[in-house]
């Protein structure tokens, strides 16, 4: 395995995480429970998609086979997407969406922080922009989760349901396959253990304020990093890719 193939593989994983989560978040546009959140959630979606674009552009550059960001985003089949399962989970209710975003942002914050010292200059440069965006996501989703968890009987019940549904997808966030390990070894990507510790710290602190319990379960779901996705993913891709598939290369 060459360094560049390990790097390409790892960059695509992260890019896919951002594209898919950004797409999911964008599904709220026009459907949010209040006008303020109807601007806030697409804001976060645009942050995610902006980061995905930067990462796909970089992946295309590493690969050097003439593919573009659009080829990565729109013209692959489901098995070629390596995002973790968490980010493709359907929006569910507002509590689910806030928690999914927090789970992901709580990983990406220490990730980008560590990337400030990456030996890869392109990723290092991206990390300084990304960390500001992701910090806000933690703050915004965290504040909502505190208010929903420690809110009314209904908001509390919905928040608890979201935790039970989504928590099994969090273990996959810390998996590292052979290529990722290679990228870590070379000082390009950060070690997983400190990321997990930082993630747990963030989640524990917010759950404590929200009066939520971290589920005491070892059951977990994974597969996304190997291209094995959940049923909902096919529908997501159909919507995401429709225009590009129906009108290949069209511009407007």
């Amino acid at each position, binding site marked *: 395995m060459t360094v560049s193939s390990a790097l390409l593989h790892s960059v695509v994983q992260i890019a896919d995480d951002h594209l898919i989560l950004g797409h999911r978040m964008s599904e709220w546009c026009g*459907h*949010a*429970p*209040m*006008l*303020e*959140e*109807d*601007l*806030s959630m697409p*804001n976060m979606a645009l942050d995610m998609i902006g980061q995905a674009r930067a990462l796909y552009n970089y992946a295309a550059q590493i690969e050097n086979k003439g593919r573009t960001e659009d080829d990565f985003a729109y013209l692959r089949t489901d098995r070629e997407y390596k995002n973790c399962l968490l980010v493709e989970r359907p929006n569910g209710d507002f509590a689910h969406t806030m928690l999914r975003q927090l789970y992901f942002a709580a990983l990406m914050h220490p990730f980008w922080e560590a990337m400030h010292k990456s030996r890869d200059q392109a990723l290092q440069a991206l990390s300084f922009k990304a960390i500001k965006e992701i910090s*806000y996501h933690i*703050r*915004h989703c965290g*504040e*909502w989760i505190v*208010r929903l968890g420690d809110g009314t009987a209904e908001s509390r019940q919905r928040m608890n349901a979201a935790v039970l549904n989504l928590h099994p997808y969090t273990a996959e966030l810390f998996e590292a396959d052979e290529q990722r390990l290679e990228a870590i070894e070379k000082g390009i990507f950060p070690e997983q253990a400190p990321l997990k510790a930082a993630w747990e710290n963030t989640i524990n602190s917010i759950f404590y304020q929200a009066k939520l319990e971290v589920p005491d379960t070892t059951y977990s779901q994974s597969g996304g990093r190997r291209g094995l996705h959940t049923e909902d993913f096919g529908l997501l891709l159909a919507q995401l890719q429709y225009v590009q598939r129906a009108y290949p290369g069209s511009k407007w």
Partner: protein
Amino acid sequence: MSTEPTLPLWEVFIRPRVGLHHKHVGSLHAADSVMALHAARDVYTRREEGDSIWVVASKNIHASDPNNAGENFDPAGDKIYRHPSFYDIPDDVGHM
């Protein structure tokens, strides 16, 4: 979309940049001041409108009575000497 009747209204003030003052830009609904600041950031600073935000609960704003507009504001109308426009400013002073 529905307006959530239980969420209070907040007035939002944005400062375009350091050295200028905060200006009223609009209002929004939020549960408390922290969430109001988040919403203000998302609703009113999308196009780099500012670098500082104030929010004030609308219920804390006390307005003058429009019925008193005459007695409040008309008496200033004939006191033009309060405008500093009767002085000759030397050209080399520049913009004041």
